[in-house]
């Protein structure tokens, strides 16, 4: 290493770092890492929104954003792992005899420290971001509660039923007016179920003799698929129904047709 040093001065950390960056293996690693990071970023940003269903509520919007952001946070980790993965495979040893001895590197405290530090920071970012989202949805829920439409959801083996107490309507369909907060009060007539109106980004278990609350605001007109996300026996797969996010006048017409009174 000390081929051209005539002055025996310890190099400054800055010099050591720039020298480190000039090493061939380090450059290769960084290049691959950058490449894979970019790949993961693009994949996450493109595919999750493509695969996930239509965003029809405030919560669903937050969820989709979260999926994308989390992909960004984890992309550098993927980049680093896949970089060494690719690089060592490119230098693989061929033949039927064991490879020659590699460098005897037993540890690298700085390396371990930097890696752990970066990993912890990324984790911390994910944790903080998640907590902020959690908190903001809780805040929105408190703010919206007073003028919300209450829907009592009952899971039965293997059919959902919905009761709109303020409207005097009972139905097997989950119809909702657009842009009005809705509070789901979820319970079960028998075993555990999990109420999942897919496009609304809401999920909550239905437990017998207990009420679980969930809240959101539908923001887009369209069909909602309501599913059960907790194995509940024989016809769990068929414990599905649908519903619609409607304009307020359509919703009122539906309520009247069901024999209820308009809100």
């Amino acid at each position: 290493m000390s081929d051209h040093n005539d002055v025996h001065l310890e190099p400054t950390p800055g010099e050591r770092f720039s020298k480190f960056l000039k090493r061939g293996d380090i450059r290769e690693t960084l290049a691959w890492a950058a490449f894979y990071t970019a790949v993961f970023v693009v994949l996450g940003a493109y595919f999750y929104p493509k695969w996930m269903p239509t965003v029809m509520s405030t919560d669903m919007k937050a969820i989709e954003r979260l999926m994308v952001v989390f992909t960004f946070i984890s992309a550098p980790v993927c980049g680093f792992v896949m970089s060494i993965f690719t690089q060592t495979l490119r230098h693989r040893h061929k033949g039927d005899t064991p490879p020659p001895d590699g460098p005897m590197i037993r540890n690298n405290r700085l390396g371990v420290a930097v890696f752990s530090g970066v990993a912890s920071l990324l984790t911390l970012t994910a944790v903080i971001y998640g907590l902020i989202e959690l908190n903001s949805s809780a805040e929105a829920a408190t703010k919206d509660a007073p003028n919300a439409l209450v829907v009592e959801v009952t899971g039965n083996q293997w059919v959902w039923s919905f009761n709109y107490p303020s409207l005097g309507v009972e139905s097997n369909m989950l119809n909702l007016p657009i842009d009005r907060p809705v509070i789901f009060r979820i319970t079960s007539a028998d075993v555990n179920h999990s109420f999942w109106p897919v496009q609304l980004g809401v999920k909550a278990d239905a437990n017998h003799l207990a009420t679980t609350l969930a809240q959101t605001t539908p923001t887009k007109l369209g069909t909602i698929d309501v599913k059960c996300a907790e194995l509940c026996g024989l016809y769990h797969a068929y414990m599905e129904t649908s519903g619609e996010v409607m304009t307020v006048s359509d919703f009122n017409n539906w309520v009247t047709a069901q024999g209820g009174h308009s809100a």
Partner: protein
Amino acid sequence: MTTLSQQVSNRPIPNPKKSLITRLNMGTGLIVGIAFALATYYSMQTTLDDATLNFQRNNQVLLATMFMWSIGFLVGIGAFIGPFRWLIGKDLTAEEQLYLAGDGQGIKRYFKYCTDHKVVGIQYLWGVIAMLAVGGSMAMMIRTQLAQPGAKFITPSIYNSLVGLHGITMIVAMIIVATGPFGNFIMPIMIGAADMAFPRLNALSWWVLFTAIPVLCSAWFLGGIPTGWTAYAPLSVQAGPGMNAFIATIIIFAVSTAVAGANITATVISMRAKGMTWNRVPIFVIGATISVALAVPAFPTFMVAMIQTAMDRTFLTGFFDSNVGGSGWLYAHLFWIMGHPEVYVILLPGVAILMEIVPVFVRKPLFSYTAAVVGFAGIAGLSVLVWAHHMYMSGWLPMLNGPFMVTTEMISIPTGLIFLVILGTLWNGKPWLKVPMLGVYAFLWNMLIGGITGLYLSDVPADNYLHGSMYVTAHFHYTLMGAALTGAVAGLSYWYPKMTGRMLNERAGYISFWFVQIGFQILYLGMFIAGAEGQPRRVSDYAQMYANSNRISTFGAYLIGTGFIVLLWAVIHSWRNGVIAPMNPWGAKTLEWTVPYPVPLVNFDTPPVVTSDPYGYGKAVK
């Protein structure tokens, strides 16, 4: 010069005419077990009060029958001879102990209550292979049903049973897949011990587990189980007679893991070779020990949950029945307090095997042994604090979702260390891509995907969408199958020469590897998409919109199935016809490669003395 093992072999066996020990084997076990079961079944059928509800009565009879089968089998195979001798103030004679070790009994010892850890290891290996084969076949059935929408293949009840029994068969198999065969066969040699700390308990742990296998199979003939392997109450309290088989299996299995866990832990603590200080212990031993030590506190809670379920079903106690003040949440807690540590019980030994493999095949020391140990310990420590991340949506206590999210995401830090150790060992090395080494690369990719998708799932808002969907199924298959099973298969091809004296057929190994790994990516890519699109898990039928992703998944599953059949062929074929293996085919430095095949009864002629850790590969760097 006669070696110690030859001296041992020349010792007389106990008088074959008189000693009961020499007459007991699996056959007598089956006879006594079945006799106990039949006697219990018929005596209870005739004596039980007719007025008791049919449902309760059935459950009482079936559970009692299953437990009595297990006890009867153990009596019949001679598991209680030692304790019985102690009861009357004696112990086994030296000859009898040698006989129990299977000394000089050839293939017969595999069907006996044999205390030799190498025999127990092989018994576990075949037990695991059988379980994986059955569980894998069930997976093929599940994927066939899901190949197209419309539930055209099997009924929803058969489907639900397949889902539950595939789940529990695979979970049980995966818990023992590394610590069973390798923890028993290889690990004692690796630490320079003559046997396990408690050889008779070792035999007991295997044969107890063995009795659970027919019990679990009986679920099929009792109408199956509708609950999945999580067996959530109150669904499990409502379920038909097949549920009793599930309950009995878990209780029996929990006994087996407790015995095995205590034994392995004690062995590693007290039986290490002279000079093998804690920082010289091979990393597989560390991983396996932390894994079983984690299982020891985890499994009893599952056992308790199952006992309570059984009581709800037989005596209407109502632990989980909200009508009488019980709660399904209680079950969920007990289950997941076991359930989350359990995934690391499965994962750690698999990872540790790969950490054992990497240095050998890149000829470099294991990078940062300390980081590996801290990583394992950190994962194990945190894993007991995260269980309620499975209950974010349960409505139990939404206030605690935040804290559980924090602890869960913190696990990515020690997991990162595990990656770092493997990557650091690979760094600037020239990997020798033999079959075991391929597993390391498969692990890196699979665990990366499994880990990152786990990050989404650990986040409460994202889990609002993903919980209970196919996304979860794909995620945990990436960790349990893509990472842990890959590690175990790598371990099998790595240690196969030591366990059988022959090399595992290499070409078949490669073919199997590529079929399995490519099929795996296809299967679970399809499943991630289906989950992101909103398909719930454990459904016997689905809407048309998921047809494409499911078809892709089924295609991948068939590739995996084919790959594993090829592997099975290789294991059987090479066992008899493989190339004779040299003592140390990979040039590894751990102790198990210093003993010949067949491994002598007491492993080492002279107890080894250890002077360094086993990772001294490589040229010193300037």
